[in-house]
């Protein structure tokens, strides 16, 4: 399993729901959560694949900011 960490702009409940429908239907994603308290609204994904770039593109296409958070 791979853990992918992103910085996002998901703030509202609506945005969270929209993201949810994207991620919940994604074949490789086992679990995910957003830390809404964090300034970077950190998105943490547990994925079966090492597919950082693909997930980032998917989320960006839906109109959200989503960047890698460096180690």
């Amino acid at each position, binding site marked *: 399993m791979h*853990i992918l*960490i992103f910085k996002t702009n998901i703030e509202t409940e609506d945005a969270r729901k929209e993201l949810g429908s994207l991620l919940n239907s994604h074949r490789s994603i086992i679990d995910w959560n957003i830390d809404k308290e964090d300034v970077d609204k950190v998105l943490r994904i547990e994925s079966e694949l090492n597919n950082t770039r693909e997930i980032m593109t998917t989320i960006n296409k839906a109109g959200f900011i989503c960047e890698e958070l460096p180690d």
Partner: protein
Amino acid sequence: MNERSFIFVSEMRIRDTNKELSVKHHAMELLLKDGFDGFSMQKLAKACDISVGTLYIYYKNKEDLIIRIGIEEGKRMMKATMKNFSPDMPFAAGLKVQWENRSAYWLKNKQASLFFENIKHTHYAEVILNEISDGFRPTMQQFVKNSIAKKELEFLSFESYWSVAFGPLYTLLKFEQNGKSVGNRPYKFSKKVMYQTLELVLKALKP
């Protein structure tokens, strides 16, 4: 790329016990300094000199971090409290072991003890308590039950019992924590005073 396999993470955890201890130490320090509301993953990452991303690999969010650190440390505390203790002991001997274990843990783990003092008032307490008191609570309840049955302990309301059995001990430990007792008197914990106080408590609780 910021992805890494769980196997790698596990290996890192084993190799990097120092980093984990550092996160735990700084988390407790920050929580004591800024309170539970003032604490953040960003501040913690800064204090540990690691990136926020690294912190999120280990913990889902602030809630997850506080709870998991609380559970881990709580289990250590419970284990320390149970050392050489059995619910079948005579009441006086059992309470003595409890006082010895609790004071030893407190004196050796002042930061964690303060952390548990403060977490009591938060919603994290319940989750942590449910995880760590398996075995602990039933054992302590059995000890009280046995002692009442053997007529070594008065039959009392639980809070009355607990406040007399442990209130004086934690009062002394808080004096030690402040370095001062009542009216700003300088204070240093001593086993002599602890045992003297325990004698009084045993007298109070004897039927």
